[in-house]
């Protein structure tokens, strides 16, 4: 076991997979020689050579398309999109091509591409470096969507993504890259070194796709979320002294409905949370499915904790970010109902 932050854990996943499988290649804007603006691909070019870890031109559509073509010829490309906010020029290649290649060719061509991209706010990134656009990708049949909340999961999930026969959009909550975050903007920066999930095996292991993690057991209310908000929800439950069960979804598509339903049927109360804007977010899908599965067990309306239906503001970032107070308010509302 080693202590790793999320960047090191992701780098280790790439390193392990590139070592094991000569068909794994990694590329993206600034992702080659320099090792990525967040350093996730650091040292890979030095270790594995220019043709396995390389810089790409600033054209997200071309990056995704290149990955599709390579995957169709038997490589396992891991493409980095520098910020999730920049992924949209590549959206057509993801929606119309990557996601459907297996389907439209009746399985004769496949493109098991992994697209890694840092997402989320809380880093003073303003509206172009803070988005959580995961919901767009959960609406595309044919791709899997994942978002880890800690270094241990990040490495095991990225390895699973690379080994998946299906394309994966892999969101990395960049606020968690360097340390856990409880949602208090003014709080001291903490380190993954002091967190149990900062203990990461150096070799190969997987965290399975489609399996949620109950990160806190409780009986009063179920909180279903993913990414940065997993830690925020935990901090809120501690602070408010609420006996909350907190589920880290880890995989959004296909999400682990069994674990969710088991918990909500037990607690009878549920909060679904996302950092992204509220309307048509992934929390809406969760709420709809949970009421289908658990309606007669529910004792209160499902509450949503989300960002606002606005772009991500710069100066007022912390008024946008769904921090612990918003979780505590939601917990109170759902418990009082």
């Amino acid at each position, binding site marked *: 076991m080693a202590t790793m932050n999320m960047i090191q854990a992701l780098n280790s996943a790439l390193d392990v997979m590139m070592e094991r499988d000569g068909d794994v290649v990694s590329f993206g804007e600034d992702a080659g020689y320099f090792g990525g603006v967040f350093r996730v691909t650091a040292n890979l070019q030095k270790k594995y050579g220019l043709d396995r870890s390389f810089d790409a*031109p600033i054209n997200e559509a071309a990056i995704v398309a290149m990955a599709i073509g390579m995957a169709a*010829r038997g490589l396992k490309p891991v493409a980095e999109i520098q910020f999730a906010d920049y992924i949209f020029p590549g959206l057509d*290649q993801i929606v119309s*091509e990557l996601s459907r290649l*297996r389907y439209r060719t009746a399985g004769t061509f496949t493109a098991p591409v992994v697209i890694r991209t840092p997402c989320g706010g809380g880093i003073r990134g303003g509206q172009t470096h803070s988005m959580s656009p995961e919901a767009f990708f959960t609406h595309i049949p044919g791709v899997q969507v994942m978002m880890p909340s800690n270094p241990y999961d990040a490495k095991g999930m990225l390895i699973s993504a690379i080994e998946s026969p299906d394309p994966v959009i892999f969101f990395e909550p960049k606020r968690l890259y360097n340390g856990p975050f409880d949602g208090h903007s003014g709080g001291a920066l903490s380190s993954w070194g002091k967190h149990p999930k900062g203990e990461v095996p150096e070799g190969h292991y997987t965290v399975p796709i489609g399996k949620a993690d109950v990160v806190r057991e409780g009986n009063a209310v179920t909180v279903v979320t993913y990414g940065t908000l997993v830690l925020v929800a935990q901090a809120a439950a501690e602070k408010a002294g609420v006996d909350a069960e907190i589920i880290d979804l880890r995989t959004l598509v296909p999400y682990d*409905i069994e674990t969710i339903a088991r918990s909500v049927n037990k607690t009878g109360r549920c909060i679904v949370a996302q950092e992204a804007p509220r309307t048509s977010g992934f929390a809406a899908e969760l709420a709809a499915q949970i009421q289908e599965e658990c309606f007669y067990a529910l004792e209160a309306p499902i509450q949503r904790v989300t960002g606002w239906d606005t772009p991500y503001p710069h100066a007022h970032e912390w008024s946008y970010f769904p921090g612990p107070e918003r979780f505590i308010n939601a917990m109170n509302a759902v418990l009082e109902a």
Partner: protein
Amino acid sequence: MAQDEPRFHVPAPHVRPGDTPDFSHLDLQAAGEAPRPDPSVAGMETRDLALGLIGVLDHNHQAVGDWDPKLKPDVLREGLRHMMLTRTYDDRMLKLQRQGKMSFYMKSTGEEAVAVAGAMALDKGDMVFPSYRQQGILFARGRDIVDMMCHCISNSRDNLKGRQLPVHYTWAEGNFFSISGNLATQFPQAVGYAMACQYKGDKQIAASWIGEGSTAEGDFHGALVLASTYKAPVILNVVNNQWAISTFQGIAAGQSPSFALKGLGYGLASLRVDGNDFLAVYAATQWAAERARAGHGATVIETFTYRADAHSTSDDPSGYRPKGENEIWPLGDPIARLKNHLIGLGEWDEARHTALEKEQNELVIASYKEAESYGTLHDGPLSPVNSIFEDVYAEQDWRLRRQRQDLGV
């Protein structure tokens, strides 16, 4: 009220419906004039070729100049046969579509040389990323006609399980990549594929085709950037058939005098070729393939041709271009030109031509009869309904399993 004069520039074709067809504004280099550099030439040295026109067959149907690929008569006859079969197949499928036998069809009439000569000049192992008007590649590579028809009528033997519109073929065994239907998307994919071929250490290359209208798409430019940056072994064909549905080529060309010229901005070898000249298309593709295989990088080839028929069965060209343009197209008809060349060589004659037409027509009719025996879109049998939930992912997750149960299949 429309302004008398537009306040900004919007290009328009020289003639519109009701006008006399006229191509006198085209200044085309004569066959045999373009020099043939060594395929290792620096991309920037191909400027004159990007602005000129590589042609081999002259007005007397003789092969002239440096680009003559000097093909054996057998190869020429094979090319003629594939082009003729492509046309016969297209004509028959159009009729069948008009009879309601399929939802949609797209012909390649007048452009058969682009696909057939291009495919014949490649190795069969080279991966092709075609657009929707290169069915000639399938004939050149020997795909079973019944299989092609089964796809077009989406029946139980459709290798794509009824998931794609007619003519959006996929044929993995023939190294024929999936036709998307979204424009230009496959252009940069072909570059990635070509890079992976190099990575795997084989001599396979990739080739892709898009229409001139699609060069306006970002993916066209993305493909050229990738091809240039990574010096990929890929051939990027721009089929300039003058029309993108109703939109004339000038809307995509803007003030650029040729589509091939766009490759020069990326430092790529760029050729403009008479697309109705089987020998010229063959020679240019062969040159580009040799260049790619030798590690000298990608080539952009503009095949200058004319879409002699409608865009698709949903289109009526009489609404936007004069009737009879195809008859006066200055570069003629690719089948007639190759036929006349072969006759001039003493390697073909009218009687054999007529006999082959008849034979191919009978083959197409019989093939359709057989294809229909596997079902039709209207009356079935189709692929099983539960197949709509297959191949979304490698394995069906709980959502798809439940939805399949909801549908009761």
